[in-house]
């Protein structure tokens, strides 16, 4: 158990790409020589419930695939914000998308956490980039918060994984990288 294990829980509605974000995060970390695990919640809850991806990244082999308290929680819908109360603690950074602020009621956002942060990922994906790279923006934000892998690392992995697609359509590569960068930027700006 030497070394820090980063625990990240990403939650949202079906179709928001929550599981893709979790899966990609775990894979990138592994490709960078870290140990990682990714566990989706599934079962009946998955069908119509909040979709959650549990990711752990560390230097040593990962123990239990399940965890209760996350270092970073990302909630992408109002339901997800409420659902994720059970996974926060005093050291948790709680991230949600600014677009859902109107749907939130008093007490929905957790207060017993280290920090609550809203990012404009949805807006940026629609207005500046492309709705398809929404999840890349979120991934960028997670990278900025955890620092488990660098932007260069993740770009390398994406090149490897999607190299063929990227070579067919270089604009796609650029779009993905810009989305990652934009996500990191959002966290850095919020920190100032």
């Amino acid at each position, binding site marked *: *158990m030497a070394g820090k294990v980063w625990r990240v829980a990403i939650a949202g509605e079906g179709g928001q790409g929550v599981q893709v974000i979790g*899966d990609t995060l*775990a*894979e990138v970390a*592994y490709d960078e020589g870290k*140990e*990682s*695990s*990714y*566990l*989706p*919640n*599934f*079962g*009946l809850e998955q069908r119509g419930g909040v979709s959650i991806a549990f990711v752990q990244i560390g230097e040593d*082999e*990962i*123990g*239990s*695939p*399940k*965890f*209760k308290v996350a270092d970073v929680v990302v909630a992408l819908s109002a339901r997800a914000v409420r659902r994720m109360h059970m996974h926060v603690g005093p050291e948790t950074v709680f991230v949600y998308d600014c677009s859902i602020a109107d749907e939130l009621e008093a007490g929905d956002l957790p207060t017993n956490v280290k920090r609550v942060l809203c990012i404009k990922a949805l807006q940026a994906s629609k207005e500046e980039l492309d709705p398809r790279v929404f999840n890349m923006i979120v991934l960028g934000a997670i990278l900025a918060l955890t620092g488990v892998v660098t932007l260069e690392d993740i770009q390398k992995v994406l090149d490897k994984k999607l190299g063929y697609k990227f070579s067919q359509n270089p604009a796609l590569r650029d779009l993905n990288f810009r989305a990652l960068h934009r996500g990191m930027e959002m966290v850095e700006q919020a920190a100032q």
Partner: protein
Amino acid sequence: MTGNEVVAWAALAAGAEIMFGYPITPQNEIMHYWTRLAPKYNRKFLQTEDEISAGFTTCGAIQAGRKAFTATAGPGNVLMQEPFGMAEAMRLPMLAIIQQRGGPSSGTVVYSQQEVTLTTYGGNGEGHRIVYSTANHQELYDYVIKGFNTAWKYRFPTFVLGDGYQAKMREPMTMYDPAERGIEMVAPQPLIGLPGQIGKDREAQHLCNIYSLEEELYDVVQRFDAEYRQMAPMIEEHQQLHCEDAEVLVIAHGVVSRAALDAVEILQAEGKKVGWFRPITLRPFPHAALEKAAARASQLLVVESAMGQLARLVKEELFMQCRPIQGLYRPAVGIMADEVVAKLRTMI
């Protein structure tokens, strides 16, 4: 890769020729991947009308000399006890992968360790079966390959006992061709349909599954039991750590053993004398190893996602040693290291 995908690849690497199955969560992806891989590698698949049929078609395929397997979970495991029983009775080398889900009944489709009793001792027999409980993806791969060999060598039905987490999670592992590692795969042998003319080159084979008299069956079961006991020391597997001077010994299997190990390491770092024992084979249980590992401990803690199913096995193995056994029983839910640590702190 998900654990289910790992299982499909492992079966392929082990030279499995045919799979029979029926959909049930959380093992479905084993069938999904197998059906995608099978045609490319000239392997076969049949989706049957239920788990009873999936088990019995597997029995038939094995009699015809094919390396056949099946996979199931929860209520499907219940239905498959009937064909598993036949595999026990006819000594058919049947391999089944069980991805445990919550129970009783349909329970949840997610996760559990509540199929230990059913998988080790289910059916109307004596539990002459081999059960490997895996903890991670690498082991799923390793033990599916090993499981085929154990089954075909010793001819007892063999199980790889996973769970919903292992089925659905992704974690790194290394795939390999068994031959590259010097693992020789045991070749399957047909029991019926042998070459040659009946009456000239060979006798007709009559395979028995039922006996009319008490004494007939008694002799058969005694023979199986003797062979099982003789085999056991060659099959039993376990892992252990810090047992030499442990005052409290934590016992866990499968994916829960990972959380238990983390907890033990946390307390070891504080200088606490806590040991860790993990049976890999739940049947036959690594009896001698547990007895030795537990010899110095004054207390035992059994940790499992069930209401004492592993604890029952442990108590049976240690019945001559009198000492308190506590349980951290969390039926059908996952267990994390901090829960184990908290429990251990109350015991130290």
